[in-house]
């Protein structure tokens, strides 16, 4: 498996767990979401914000660590190079 794909799937698995945590707490223990651990803001909002921020953080990690060399030998789009007429 290519490095980029492996990296992508690893990060995907991490996020999937984090998202499942959110969904399952909402489903099976909604009262947990009502607790206000930090600054009087409840878990529902903190967890939601964390999911959004961490999506961006993981995306950045992916962007930084992806290896560029794979693209050179796998750009299999011959038409694009012959037909472009700009």
């Amino acid at each position, binding site marked *: 498996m290519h490095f980029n794909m492996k990296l992508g799937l690893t990060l995907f698995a991490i996020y999937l767990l984090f998202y499942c945590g959110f969904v399952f707490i909402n489903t099976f223990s909604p009262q947990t979401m009502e607790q206000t651990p930090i600054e009087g803001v*409840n878990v529902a909002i903190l967890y939601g914000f964390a999911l959004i921020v961490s999506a961006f953080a993981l995306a950045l990690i992916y*962007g930084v660590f992806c290896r560029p060399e794979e693209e050179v030998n796998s750009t299999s789009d011959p038409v694009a190079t012959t037909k472009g007429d700009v």
Partner: protein
Amino acid sequence: MIYDVSPTAIVVFLLFVGFTLGLSFWLGRKAKSSEGYFAAHGQIPWFVNGVAFAGDYLSAASFLGICGMIAFYGYDGFLYSVGFLAGWIVALFVVAEPMKKLGKYTFADALDAKFNSKGIKLAAGISTLAVSIFYLIPQMVGAGVLIQPLLGFPHWVGVLMVGAVVITIVVTAGMVSTTYVQFLKGGLLVVFSAILTILILNRGLETKSNFKELGPVAWDALETAFADKEIEILPNDGIWKDKLDSDQRDYVVSRNPNDPPGKITVWKQVKDANNLVRLLECQLLETRAGKRYINGLPEGTGEGQAQLEPVGSLSKLPDDKTETGPLGAFGFIKTIQNSEVKLWRDDKKFPSLKNGDKATVYYPKLVPGSQVLRPGEHPKFAGIRRDGIFDKLNFLSLMLALFCGTASLPHILIRYYTVKDAASARKSTIVGIASIGFFYVLTLFLGLGAMTSGAMDVSSSNMAAPLLAKSISPLLFAIISAIAFTTVLGTVSGLILASSGAVTHDLAVSFLGLELDDQAQVRLAKIASVVVGVIAIALGILFKGLNVGYLVGWAFSVAASANLPALVMLLFWKKTTKQGIIAAVIVGMVSSLAWILLSQDTFKSVYGIADAQGVVPFSQPGIVTIPLGFLTLVVVSLMTGKSKS
């Protein structure tokens, strides 16, 4: 008064649309080949493409639907924000690069890259059309909803206008102009939502309401208690006899001798712990012989007429303050958490003043902020607070569909073909996630800001975001409405382009084997755009009454069920066969559509059967039909494995 047609609004609005169209014509000169038409020559810079992702993705459902849902029910709308964004993780980490490497114009290209099968093109082309049209309906309805208050036109004119403008954009230049329209709109939407959020936080929170509250008094004293305020409680006779004649009754009706004849006030009765009664002023909307009446008076602005008044306020702030002054982001949420909010609900069972006609009473409900900010208050999400397994499955199913749906939406997938290589596809997705994520964080503040703005229309949650802007300044209202309108334009253009690509490329050229040269392909695509556009206009008018956010969750379910299993298995399972892919796409699409059409939600809101049970046990199909798609693919692939050529 909630809406009035202002010249500023019209000027700003026309400037926006005019600029968008001008841009489209100007860019359109460049795109002549089919490569240019469907994929903008693969020459869109990654940053522009990234913001265009946001423009494509943040549809009317996100902007109008989510804000409205938060404004009326609190936290639950934000669940959509979280789910919609999480889906991008699938798009970036799993789908982006292979899509770019495998395909050329359409989603079907990528699915078919290994097999060159007409069957796959047909199945994927049809599923693209089905998902796009499903997704188009709420966008078009949203356009009509916006135009009505902004320009004073009826709903169908709004739908027709969007349809005409979008068809013009798509036909003149295809993907190039569509991309820049989406870039423009995505950027504007995020920037102005941020400005609006800053203004909301600066304004802070206050307790202020145009609606009266009486009591508390003892129940027996009710009839005479408010005589000094010239409020005369009407006796329980006539048509209210059965409904309103005990101390258990929900409503009390009163009149003020100084009011114009016919005017009444409806009060919601709330009992406190000491069995004392408080009365909260309501609004009554009746339809008598086709005409609307508000609180007993004909609707209008003149003498002896009445209108629905704007709503949305806090009934209590922490420490009995009346206003907070400017607040920080977390301070804003914390303050609401410890306040009491006056939310509005409707009751359609109120007996009308004249027999046989419709009456709806909009009544206030005082809800502690801690409940407003917790999940499970919206009727669709209330299932998580019940013990029934189907209620919980329904919620899981929706969250699964949102997670899997993004990476399966055809109009999002085609945007991977507008950049030059896999690295650009990746970078533009990251830019997309940043802008979309930022916007979704803002939706919570916009929604809560709208909830407490005193400018909401009780009868339409879809207008929450523009009306919030109006509570700050009329110019901002015009700008936000125009942006919302271009939001619809951007998303609809993308959808129509995806559909016309599917018709031309997947169905006509690949499946039917028509030998079309480049010019002819573009011509066919333009004809297809017009046809799909006309269908969208018709559906937009037909489904007028539907909530904008309503169908989008389902479009996600259909997309995820039909497209995701095929896409993922093709990438990660070597034994996948073309029969497996075809079967998975068809089974996923048909089963999820059938599930939706047979669900209780559809029976209630689309067919209008109020007490229907639905054939399937819960409304959201994803948790059943997505695994079904995977299962079908595996079983069929194993059965046909040896016949693979």
